[in-house]
């Protein structure tokens, strides 16, 4: 059903205004002292122009780093609990990469596989994803090895591809995307109005404008491989330099682990859901003092096997979209791609 249109920057800006006046907030990548962060923006010019990948993934719009899930009040000897979830703000998530768009399905799989986490789903339902395909990549990118691609449409409602400095190819993929189109059809055209002859939207050869990310391994083979490596000493070897911080998990678009914390202040308190990481020693520490994952090695193993074996097995999604953020952010240069390739080669 995918429909192809052309939209230029001016119209895009106008589209933003329309959407805003329609009560939507627009979250897009913003350059903050060199770190590219997703934030609410007011116009196109707020958006970071030149970057391969954002520092933090956009997952916080649907899975914030901390979030109140209920509040309680002590009155005399009774506790009054208020757990109604707040109505999410209609949101347009603009400028995400196809890999990030793809990651939303992993999040969704985790938050809905048995218990439906309505605070997540309601946010997702109220979010329209306008992603921009990748014209550049770097050595950390490996989307093509985990089923994605620089121009992948999965998870996006609209995918933009930068054609030239002014024009974007807009692929309208879903109903949500369609709704955007219909909200301002005049801003989209079938032909671009650039002097140079102009092209027909349907005719555009999208691939020409995309980065080339070479595939490094076959993810199905990787999954198989992992079934045999549980007791391998590769984990210890690879994790030697791991510092045990939570950076990889927190920048990852597909990591879903969270902790639950009650914070009481006087007679009132709130229960928070907040990001957690399997790299932390405390993640599995028992009250008794026993820790089933005593050292960094089993923690590292858990991280990989969870993403590339357990999740595909149980939820038929991969816990990794190959965005490479973890490798870019790691203070000890734990390069995920490199490690995966190593695993593929391991005997």
């Amino acid at each position, binding site marked *: 059903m995918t429909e192809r249109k052309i939209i230029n920057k001016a119209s895009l800006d106008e589209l933003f205004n329309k959407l805003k006046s329609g009560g939507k907030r627009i979250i897009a990548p913003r350059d903050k002292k060199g770190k590219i962060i997703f934030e609410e923006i007011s116009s196109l010019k707020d958006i970071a122009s030149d970057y391969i990948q954002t520092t933090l993934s956009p997952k916080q719009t649907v899975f914030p780093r901390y979030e109140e899930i209920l*509040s309680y009040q002590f009155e005399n000897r009774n506790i009054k609990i208020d757990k109604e979830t707040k109505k999410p703000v209609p949101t347009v998530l603009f400028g995400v990469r196809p890999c990030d768009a793809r990651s939303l399905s992993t999040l969704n799989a985790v938050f809905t596989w048995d218990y439906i986490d309505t605070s997540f789903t309601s946010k997702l339902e109220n979010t329209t994803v306008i992603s921009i395909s990748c014209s550049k990549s770097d050595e950390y990118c490996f989307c093509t090895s985990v089923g994605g691609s620089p121009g992948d449409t999965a998870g996006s409602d609209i995918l933009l591809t930068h054609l030239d400095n002014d024009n974007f190819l807009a692929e309208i993929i879903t109903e949500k995307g369609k709704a955007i189109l219909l909200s301002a059809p005049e801003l989209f055209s079938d032909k671009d109005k650039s002097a140079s002859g102009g092209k027909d939207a349907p005719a555009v050869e999208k691939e020409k404008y995309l980065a080339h990310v070479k595939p490094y391994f076959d993810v199905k083979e990787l999954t198989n491989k992992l079934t045999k490596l549980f007791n391998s000493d590769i984990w210890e070897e690879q994790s030697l330099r791991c510092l045990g911080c939570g950076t990889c998990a927190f920048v990852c678009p597909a990591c879903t682990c969270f902790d639950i914390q009650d914070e009481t202040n*006087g007679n*009132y308190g709130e229960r928070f859901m907040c990001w957690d990481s399997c790299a932390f020693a405390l993640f599995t520490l028992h009250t008794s003092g026993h820790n089933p994952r005593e050292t960094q090695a089993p923690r590292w193993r858990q991280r990989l096997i969870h993403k590339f074996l357990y999740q595909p097995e149980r939820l038929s999604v991969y816990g990794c979209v190959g965005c490479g953020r973890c490798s870019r952010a790691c203070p000890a240069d734990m390069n995920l791609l490199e490690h995966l390739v190593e695993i593929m080669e391991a005997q």
Partner: protein
Amino acid sequence: MSEFEPKIIAFVCNWCTYAGADLTGTSRIKYEPNVRIIKNTCTGRIDFMMILKAFARGADGVMVSGCHPNDCHYTSGNFHARRRWIVFKNLLEFLGFDTRRIYFSWVSAAEGAKWADVVNNFVNNIKKLGPFEDYKNLNPVRASLGVLNESARPQN
């Protein structure tokens, strides 16, 4: 709207300031009722986290007081405390924390009158500064900050 009544927590040592405050009582010297004294063994015991938590709880000002230098019941607890306070106060200043909200003093067991003055001056200063919104705003869980001061509700 009645006048703003600041909430003030005082961390005092058991041997000098606590006893000094007792003397204020036995001497029937009147002072502002805003202060809530929390007794510690020694200023050396006062962890800076206590001060931070008092603010997190919604204190508009925090007092810390103990024995004069050389008079520590434990000989040097207050010297150690003094060093920590110097570092702590400088850190807070660097962070732009309004350090007028913390009052460090030496009040001996014999200085009942001084305790009253110290409290009164501090309370009046804090009244001028108003509620400590800067810090209260950091805490998302603040729906009831101060509620306990209006009427005693149960604790969990």
